[in-house]
């Protein structure tokens, strides 16, 4: 629903992402706020926001594959791992600059994603989910048994990136780096849905047979979707490695893949805003659950194993199950209903 008094006179304006001057002002204000945030945020808060941004990138990729193209990936965390390990190996073993390693990490993850997307030639839905589940287990095993390249169980370190002679090691510089890349990646993800490729994705999602009859090469577009999805995961993984400084196989488990899929569902599939909302919501829940579990463990030591071992997962599992039963279309749907309500405000419809 459009705000009252807005009329579209050409296709370009109808297709625009940002419609009104107010929206432009709010968008620019928000971006400026994000980049001056380090002035008044504590280091801990900046850390939380950096993690949110990293997951926003990864889940945006998942949104392209699942939300736009209708395929399911249970291996997003493993593809993130491919990006992280590529960055680590290129930077520490070969001394290649971060600015080269970053796109390489994306491309490496994208190519690995393509391999596990190959079964999409002949199957879809659940079968494809199985293929990516296999990717999750196989890649985890590769990280675990990669010898000195991946550092096996212990993991490997990722050096800090440099920019024009300055080493980006402080919280603030890493925050700005991650934020810049997140904004760029969000911009591309949002615009992708308006291009030819994006429209083809939606056609494949809605009915792949009908799409094929209309002349869309279904297989090719599914593979493109897989590549883009894993590319985003690779970039996110690369940034994750740089942010954390030390990566090990246990950072990229099936559980993390499920978290990312859940972020997408809770936020609302197929929309960029929904994706971001889902990531912010579930990361927030994770932080709160961790604080709650700590508090519970210190107040009642007898419940420590319960709270620390299972608290977060318990809360997470409950949220996912309840969301699917009561709000299957996610937070974004609720937000749209709210917008429709206030734009009509004095009238019920």
């Amino acid at each position, binding site marked *: 629903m459009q705000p009252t008094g807005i009329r579209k006179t050409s296709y370009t304006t109808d297709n625009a992402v940002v419609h009104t001057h107010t929206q432009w002002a709010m968008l620019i204000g928000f971006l400026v706020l994000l980049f001056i945030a380090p002035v008044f945020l504590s280091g801990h808060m900046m850390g939380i926001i950096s993690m949110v941004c990293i997951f926003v990138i990864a889940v945006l990729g998942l949104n392209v594959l699942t939300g736009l193209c209708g395929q399911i990936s249970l291996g997003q965390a493993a593809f993130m791992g491919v990006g992280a390990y590529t960055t680590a190996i290129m930077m520490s073993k070969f001394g290649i600059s971060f600015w080269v390693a970053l796109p390489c990490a994306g491309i490496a993850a994208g190519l690995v994603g393509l391999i596990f997307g190959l079964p999409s030639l002949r199957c879809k839905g659940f079968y494809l989910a199985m293929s990516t589940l296999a990717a999750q287990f*196989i890649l985890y095993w590769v990280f675990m048994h990669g010898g000195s390249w991946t550092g096996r169980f212990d993991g490997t370190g990722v050096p800090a990136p440099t920019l024009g002679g300055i080493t980006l090691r402080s919280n603030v510089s890493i925050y700005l780096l991650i934020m810049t890349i997140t904004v760029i990646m969000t911009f591309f993800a949002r615009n992708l849905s308006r291009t030819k490729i994006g429209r083809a994705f939606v056609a494949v999602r809605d009915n792949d047979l009908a799409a094929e009859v209309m002349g869309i090469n279904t297989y090719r577009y599914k593979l493109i979707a897989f590549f883009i999805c894993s590319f985003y995961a690779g970039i996110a993984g690369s940034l994750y490695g740089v942010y954390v400084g030390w990566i090990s196989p246990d950072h990229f488990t099936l559980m993390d893949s499920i978290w990312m899929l859940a972020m997408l569902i809770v936020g609302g599939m197929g929309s960029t805003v929904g994706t971001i909302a889902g990531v912010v919501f579930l990361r927030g829940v994770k932080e709160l659950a961790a604080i709650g579990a700590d508090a519970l463990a210190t107040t009642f030591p007898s419940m420590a*194993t319960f709270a620390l071992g299972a608290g977060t997962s318990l809360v997470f599992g409950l949220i996912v199950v309840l969301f699917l039963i009561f709000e299957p279309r996610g937070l974004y749907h609720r937000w749209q209903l709210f917008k429709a309500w206030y734009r009509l405000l004095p009238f019920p419809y």
Partner: protein
Amino acid sequence: MTFFIQLLATGLMVGCVYSLVALGFVLIYRSSQVFNFAQGSLVMLGGYLIWTFMVWIGLPMWLGVLVGLAASGVVGYIIDRFTIRPLIGQPLLSIILLTLGLYVLIDALVVAIWGGGEKAYPQLFSQLGMSLGGISLPYQYIGAFVIALVLFGIFTLFLQRTKIGLAMRAASESHKLAQSTGISVKAIFSWSWVIAAVVAAAGGFLLGNMNGLSLSLSAIGLRAFPVVLLGGVESVRGCIVAGPIVGILEIVGAGYLNQYVGGGMADVIPYVVLVLILVIRPYGLFGETRIERI
């Protein structure tokens, strides 16, 4: 050669337990078209429930197992009634994610209730094994093998002879037709979840007897997926054939390759098999190739 036959025999026996776990998955898929990613967790939960009644409460062994299986069945019913039923008619992704959510939830509940430590069943079979021409077969494995086969026979008979079993097969053909002949499809969904939870618990008990009861049981339960895909998702017959194949590939592959790659092959071989099946023959050995219409 002896080494090879030894691995073959072990793989066959492990594979039969996989078949049993996969049977539960296939039953749910056939009747309700739901892909149950929580099957591995049901395996683990069932194993712990049986342990609770046998060791913690101290019931005699046969009674403990029976009560544990019944308790698992109740869990299966609860899952169907309160989480699956509200989602009937929702898109595939929601249901997949729901079962993934259940997987996380059940795993967390098991940690919360029983803690993370390893538990052991009282000795069901003696530690020793029998020796056949240089191959040693532990009684635990033989026992698990025989029990899995017997249970499989019982459930096959159940599907072919009883009224509920026949109704389940009818529902797997078409929900609407089954409903119009007076079969309550909702009840069929519940029944398939109950049975799936019971066979999962039986699988958990047998796997727990082989490897000890721990949190890794849920990951081992997930290996039913390669079995299901190899056999074909709608096929009970496929489970019986595919389980031993996957078990043998896993054990033989691990036996020969572990020394070169530093271990852990058993965790990855089933999934390599899975990807190959998907590329070469996505509908499995006995699955139906569905023709789609727009």
